[in-house]
């Protein structure tokens, strides 16, 4: 597996750090080195949150502009803010009510807000989008991990929390379903 650098972007309260941690732990379970960088404090209070994830042989915790392989955007309004991190052949997965006007990198979009509401679990939009992203990217080897590996991490991490695990897997699977469609 080649090195991979991802940007995960959204606003405070959307569960960005949880998504980052799931991906990072999946990397560790695969025996890969991993570094992430997070935003805490003032920037977290409803403001823009960005996390950097680097899997493989890296020393710096930050992704340089023009170097990211992918951008996972939990808020569509963050696309113009964080697009500059992408390399020319990178990909974007975005939570948006309808696919935004786009030229350039490969873009996949999903209305995860609406799906989360339909699911009766507004907090689950992060896992919905994550499931969708992995379903779209993993088969093309655009992501360092597979669907099964990600599910295994969630099962391991939430093993002691029955209801939360069931709800999380439900959201993830719905996202996967939409991604496979």
């Amino acid at each position: 597996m080649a090195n991979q650098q991802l940007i995960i972007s959204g606003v405070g309260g959307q569960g960005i750090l949880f998504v980052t941690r799931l991906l990072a732990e999946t990397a560790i379970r695969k025996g890969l080195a991993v570094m992430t960088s997070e935003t805490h404090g003032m920037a977290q209070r409803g403001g823009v949150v960005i996390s950097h994830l680097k899997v493989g042989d890296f020393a710096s915790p930050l992704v340089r502009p023009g170097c990211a392989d992918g951008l996972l955007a939990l808020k569509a309004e963050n696309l113009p803010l964080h697009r500059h991190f992408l390399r020319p052949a990178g990909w974007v997965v975005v939570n948006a009510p309808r696919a935004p006007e786009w030229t350039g990198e490969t873009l996949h979009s999903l209305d995860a807000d609406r799906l989360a509401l339909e699911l009766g679990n507004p907090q689950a939009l992060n896992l919905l989008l994550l499931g969708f992203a992995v379903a779209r990217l993993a088969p093309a080897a655009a992501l360092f991990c597979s669907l099964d590996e990600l599910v295994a991490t969630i099962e391991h991490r939430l093993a002691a929390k029955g209801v939360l695990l069931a709800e999380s897997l439900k959201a993830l699977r719905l996202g996967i379903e939409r991604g496979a469609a």
Partner: protein
Amino acid sequence: MSERMLLLGNDAMAHGLVENGCSVVASYPGTPASEILSGVAQWQARYQLPMHVEWAVNEKVALEIAYAASQAGLRAATAMKQVGLNVASDPLMSAAYLGVKGGFLVISADDPGPHSSQTEQDSRLTAMAAKVPVLDPDSPEHARRLTGLGLELSEAFEVPVMLRPTTRVCHANQDILPGAVHPAVRRADFVKDPQRWAATPVHRYRLHLALEEKLRKIAAWEPTAPQLLNPGSGGRRAVIAAGVAAAHAREIMQDLGLWEVLPLWQVVQPYPLHTAFIEQVLAAYDELLVLEETVGVIEMQLADRGRVRGKRSGFVPEVGELLPETVARLIADFAAVPGELSVTAPAGGGRRPTLCPGCPHRASFYAIKRAAPRGIYPSDIGCYTLGLNLGGVDTVLCMGAAVSQAAGFYHAYRLSGELPDIVATVGDSTFFHAGIPPLIDAVVQDARFVLVILDNSTTAMTGNQPTPASGCGAGGVPTAAVDMEALVAACGVKFCRVGQPGDLPAFIALMKEAVAFARTDGVAVVIARQPCVVDRSYRGARPTPRAVTVSDACNGCRYCIEQFECPALVYDEQRQRVVIDTLTCSDCGVCTAVCPRLAIEEIP
């Protein structure tokens, strides 16, 4: 513990402390340092270690508690952010002279950027001013290792040692193989030595001489000497880097194809800079590029400024974080090779931080503005600094200053015979931290203002650590609890009333009473008590949920959005009226009392 795990930098340092037999750790929360102590509490519980771990009332108290443990021969540490170090600087300066017995680590986390701080100050300068050695980690794993090395250095020379991580170390996660935990085996054994521990000025002079001698030896201590990261590289130029800038440089030089040709030295101990290293690099190279955050601490110790490209020469920015894209440009320029395609980030944009939906502070600020519409509003450090957005905050200086500034404004205006309403706001944790002495001063000096203690029963901004009134300490252990009302009364305050800001009409009435009292009778304190909406550790009762909807009476005047600024109140451009974003609404129901047309209604 034998498998690699994902650890936050702060948690990695916490593990480093328990690995190395640290017995006493005290801290006051502050981003980016807050998770160090909670990490220690978690490891303490996990490994069942006999330790004292506490959230102290402020950083000065935290440092003094940990330092006394070191005086008694135990290994000890204190953790804070850079502005917290200012609060603790008084005992730090003296502790440097007196020295330590058990290894004593002062962890001060810096925030270049700054991401969540009042200043970008460089704690390494404070280390220089205090004359204590400082270590500069480049990653979570490096920070974990340097906690052990720092304690060793501290004991070897009987000197406090500062560990100075930055945001990018504290809040980076890395896969780490934690070391074996060595529980402390020492017993406290304070050996009386008044000439040292209670030294008067004449002894302090001798202690200062001894400290200088220690520093000369520390500047030659092998384990913290700078390291050449790419042996075999040659040439007449070299890069010297410290902290996370060294991590950026390592990666960038490989990407730019410079690894074999441009020597990269990593400085682990920026102060005192190793004397032999200074001589060596000045003899070996014609030009040096120094990369460090934030101030040129290494640079100023390289006496020959003529061949150093750094902050003083204007080559390296003196302000802001040394982002990897900046480091890439600097190294490419220095090595005279083509850099990467420069991609610039868009300027500005994005939504600004705001108080959470349902946050009781929003209601408090609304009530304050209603009770004293033309008032002066000094405020303080915490989530409620975001009351700026609401027009409820005019000043923010440092912890506790809301109270002293309110008094200062009163005295300033009194001299010219004017008496504006002054309503200061301070959080409960901040009040305990540094708000009590200025409240006493205000009462004694007969100042007249309203102090609203925004009591959400937690230290919310930094991740919901307990306060002295919580009745629990680090890791949730039960503690005694301080009675805030009794404390305020004991400061001599004659008007001290508790209200619930979520009951907005009643709270506005209470605020009006307090403002009227303060005009004639002195300091009035209102304790606005309602739990933080995101505090998962809160066990008490919360207000009953009140889901709301917007009726057809809404004429789109935007009063609620401008004056109340709840993220769940959204202006629908198409329908030209306000709607509730049910994804973010917390059902607090407070906005029903805000709309002048009564268009926001509770759903029955």
